[in-house]
Each structure stands twice: as structure tokens, then as C-alpha cells.
């Protein structure tokens, strides 16, 4: 593992990262999802794709990377981009899981690999809407202490800037960005994903011009059991970009 400090908007972000196969000439950047970290991604993908230089990054505020200010997804993309310049990495392939998928999209790589990615707004179910409404009433009566009973699983234990970040990124809709992406996309999804359901995959597949959708058994973290197959698909997708030239 290693640490690099990145300056962005007058703030310093210590970015923890790790590089595998340093001699390989094609880069694959691997971005984790919300509340996750690079170790989880590394565990899945480190044994495969050994012709690529793997770059695992802890996104600001997660794993061992720091973040003291609220960010938006485009800030994440910009920080990763700055970081990539520092380590002299190219945007050959970027793989993103969940929230990392959105960041990957905004980085506009040659090959975009979305693994159970978010990025399409799904209206909140009535239950969640009701929860928010009730909590707002509670707050008026000074019962904000009960927050932990109401706050989303993904936002519990978050620091204040990260909670703000959560609110910034959770309801984003990047349909336009998906539609205007003109590289090659590989979408890998878990059939029983409830966090970013299959409907999202179908929508994204429809929006992106050149995309392939692969469906696997499993939930939002299906890739942990299918990393070998996913890796094979990534290699094939990358090879296809060479054919066209």
C-alpha cells in the first residue's frame, strides 16, 4: 500500500492506493463502492488480469483515504483524475462497483466496466419517504436524538462531511452522462441485486451506445464469487477495442 497527497479545491486528500503488476503497460483502475474499500476489490481481482497494471484506490473518506469536506460525485472523479496524473496512469480501463461505477463513468475511460453500478435515480419507496417525513416532524419537536433509528444503513456512523456527501450522491441521476459516453462498456450485474437492481442495468445498457450486459448469480456483491469470469470478460472487452483499430 502507499499514500499520495492530492490537493483539490484548497483541501488535501491523502489517497491510499496499491499497485499490482507494476511492469504491465495497460492500466486498470479499480474503484470500490459506498462504504467499501480497495481491499475488498483487491481480494476479488488481484489474482486475475495479470497483463494489466492494477491500480486499487480508496476513494476519499473510505478505507484509508481521508476526506474532511463534503463532495459530489464529480469531485470524486476529479480527485481520482488528479491522482492518476500523479502516478502517470492512463484511462485504459476503469472498473467501478456501485458508487465507484458513477465515478468511473465521469472519468470517461476507453473501457468502462460497471459492476452493479449506481447512477440512475430510482424513486424512493413509500416506506422510506414516510420515514423521512416522520423524522422531520420529530426534529421539530427536538427529538433529533432518535436519528439513528431513521438514518439509512449506508449513512450510519458517517462523519458530518461524509453524511453531506452521502446526501449529495445518493439521488443523482447520470442518465445524460451514460447516454453521451462513447467508449466501450461492460456491465456486470448480480441477478438478485437489491441495492442497484437489474432494472438499473437494463436502463444503463439501453443508454450506452456500445455496451454488453452480463448477468451472474448473486446480489450486489456477486463479483466476489465471480471475479474470475468478470475478469475474463474485462480482458475480452479490452481486446475488442484493439481489433477495431
Amino acid at each position: 500500500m502507499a499514500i499520495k497527497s492530492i490537493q483539490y479545491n484548497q483541501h488535501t486528500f491523502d489517497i491510499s492506493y496499491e499497485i499490482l503488476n507494476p511492469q504491465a503497460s495497460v492500466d486498470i483502475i479499480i474503484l470500490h463502492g459506498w462504504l467499501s474499500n480497495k481491499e475488498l476489490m483487491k481480494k476479488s481481482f488481484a489474482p486475475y488480469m495479470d497483463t494489466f497494471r492494477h491500480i486499487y484506490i480508496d476513494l476519499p473518506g473510505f478505507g484509508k483515504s481521508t476526506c474532511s469536506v463534503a463532495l459530489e460525485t464529480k469531485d470524486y472523479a476529479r480527485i481520482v483524475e488528479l491522482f492518476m496524473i500523479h502516478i502517470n496512469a492512463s484511462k485504459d480501463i476503469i472498473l467501478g462497483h456501485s458508487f465507484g461505477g458513477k465515478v468511473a463513468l465521469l472519468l470517461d475511460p476507453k473501457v468502462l466496466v460497471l459492476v452493479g453500478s449506481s447512477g440512475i435515480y430510482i424513486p424512493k419507496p413509500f416506506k422510506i419517504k414516510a420515514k423521512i417525513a416522520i423524522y422531520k416532524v420529530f426534529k421539530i419537536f427536538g427529538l433529533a436524538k432518535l436519528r439513528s433509528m431513521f438514518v439509512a444503513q449506508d449513512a450510519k456512523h458517517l462523519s458530518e462531511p461524509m453524511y453531506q456527501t452521502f446526501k449529495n450522491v445518493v439521488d443523482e441521476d447520470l442518465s445524460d452522462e451514460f447516454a453521451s459516453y462513447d467508449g466501450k462498456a461492460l456491465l456486470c450485474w448480480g441477478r438478485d441485486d437489491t441495492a442497484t437492481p437489474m432494472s438499473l442495468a437494463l436502463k444503463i445498457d439501453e443508454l450506452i451506445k456500445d455496451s454488453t450486459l452480463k448477468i451472474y448469480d448473486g446480489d450486489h456483491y456477486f463479483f466476489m464469487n465471480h471475479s474470475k469470469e468478470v475478469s475474463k470478460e474485462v480482458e475480452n472487452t479490452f481486446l475488442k477495442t484493439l481489433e477495431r483499430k
Partner: protein
Amino acid sequence: MKLIILFGGASFEHEISIVSAITLKEKLSGFDLTFIFCDQDHKFYLIDASMMRANTFSKAQHKKMPQLSITNGSFFQKNLFGTTQYGGSVLNLIHGADGEDGTIASVLDFFSIKYIGPRVDASIFSYDKRYTKYLCMAKKIKTLEYEVVSVKEHKNITTDYPMIIKPSRLGSSIGVSVVKDESELDYALDVAFEFDKYAIVEPFIDGVKEYNLAGFMADGEMHFSIVEEPQKNELLDFEKKYMDFSRSEQVLKADISLELENKLKNTFTKVYKDLFEGALIRCDFFVVEGEVYLNEINPIPGSMANYLFEDFKGSLEMLKNSLPTQKRAKVNYEYIHSISQAKGK
């Protein structure tokens, strides 16, 4: 022999310390051992000897065990009917931060608890590799040429390739890289900077002879282990080092001349004397063209370098019986009394 083994600590080497403690439990069978674990939040727990397994800590089972506090002369456990004391000498087995940086030494000194381990001043000079270089300069001990780089300001490194880059304040090969050419330099620095703000750059001498020697002072005399030539493939990486910390088999004596052995022992004594008393340390040396260079000082070596000693138990007992005593100022308010008297109050 009664001994408290203190291990864990808020350190990058926390897990290594656990391995060390488990190894020593085997090595010191027959001793009356008490195990005290310091978790990453600096809470002390009394660990039942039967629970001295790596899982106990990774699964946080230690939290169910009695929590201890520290007071003058001992650790203690509060219970319904008062307190249970855990007094006696401590073996400081916390590697890295806390254990080797002088923190634990200060705590134990403050509470007048006797311990095997480096004192505060010894810790300062061995924990930070920059200060080890200063020590060598002052004591006229040879070390390799070096440069210091800081995370804050990047300067041009003038050392030739291949070079070795190490975080300034960490042992156990964590964060250490051998850099063969410029393309590997940036990443190697970032790796070191994950662990420390400063890194040491030294030339990497391929095939250099390396020798390890452990020892301690007891009854006014130096006692040495055998000299070991560690087997190495370029660099002991973390995993191999980790295995190294659980070593318990006696190793073979390095096949070196009596002259070289004496040279190593003399250099060791120079390092040790008037600084490391009370500790069993291991020094790692390089030998280049017959000259002895100090590479690093391990003031709390992995599993106390037990494998280097023919009679490890006996050695530890000897050391325990000649631990330094602290000199503490006696406060008797003479000065205030004399002023009060002069004023006639």
C-alpha cells in the same frame, strides 16, 4: 520465574506482537506467565493463558476478559471485593509504536514497574532510523551512507540505483522497497510515506553479507547470542518476516572467523553500553570488505530472538535479575521549610 508479558499496542506491528507473545508462551513454558494485552485503544486486558491464540484477538474475544488498570507498582483489576494486583516485572513485547518508541517505557517508569525492554532514551535512538544514524555518528559506529526524504518536500535523491527505501520509524520490513530504477521510485516513496512522514534512502548492496546478533547486559557483563546469517532473497518481505516473528527453532551459528565475530560483538557493545541496559536487543549488521556496518537496532526483537540463544530461559532470568533501577528525586520540601522558617511563619 514470574513474568508479565505485555503485548499488542496501537501500532502497525500490533499483529506481529501477538505472534511474538504466542511464540514466547511456548518458549517459556514452566515460567509463571501473566499475559496482558494492550488493544488499539490503549485498554489493557488480562488474557487467560489458554486463550493465547491469534483468533482471540481478531475476533475481539479479549473484550470479554477482565480489563486492567495501572497504578504504582502494578497492574490491577477492580472487582466486587476490591482489587487484584498483577505486580512483578514486565516483559515489554509491544513491537513498533507504543512499545519501541518510548511510550510504554515512560508509562512503566512513571508507575515504577520494572520491565525488560528499552528505556525511553534507548527507544528514541533505535525507533527512528534517522536518530540511529546520529547515534552511530556520535559513537563512531559505521553505517551506510543515507539520505532523508520527507513527504512534505520532495528533493532530488542522489543515491545511485539500486537503492532501498524505508519508512524512518518502522521495523519488520513494513513499507520497505528495493528500487532498481527511476520508474519504481515514486511508488516506493508513497509506500514508505503511508507509514511515516520521513523515509531513509540507502544504497542497496546486492549480495551484501548480513549478520544478526542479539545480546544484553546482566551482572555488569555483556551476554551474547550466537551470530546468525539470516537467509534472504533480496529482502525479507512482510510475510517472511511475519513467519520470522514466530520462530522458535534454534538456528545454526554463522560460519565466520573468530576475528569477525569479535568485531561484531565489539560493535554491538558500543551500541548497547550506557543506553540499552535493561533490554535484550538484536542488532542487524552488514559486512562490507571486512568492515562492520550497523544496519538497524531492534530493541524488542521478534519473539525476543529466542532462537539465537542456547539457553533462552536462563538468559531472560539473568536479565530480569539485573534490571536497572531508576533514580527518582526525593521531595522533602527543605527549601519551602527553610523559607518559611526565615519568614518566621
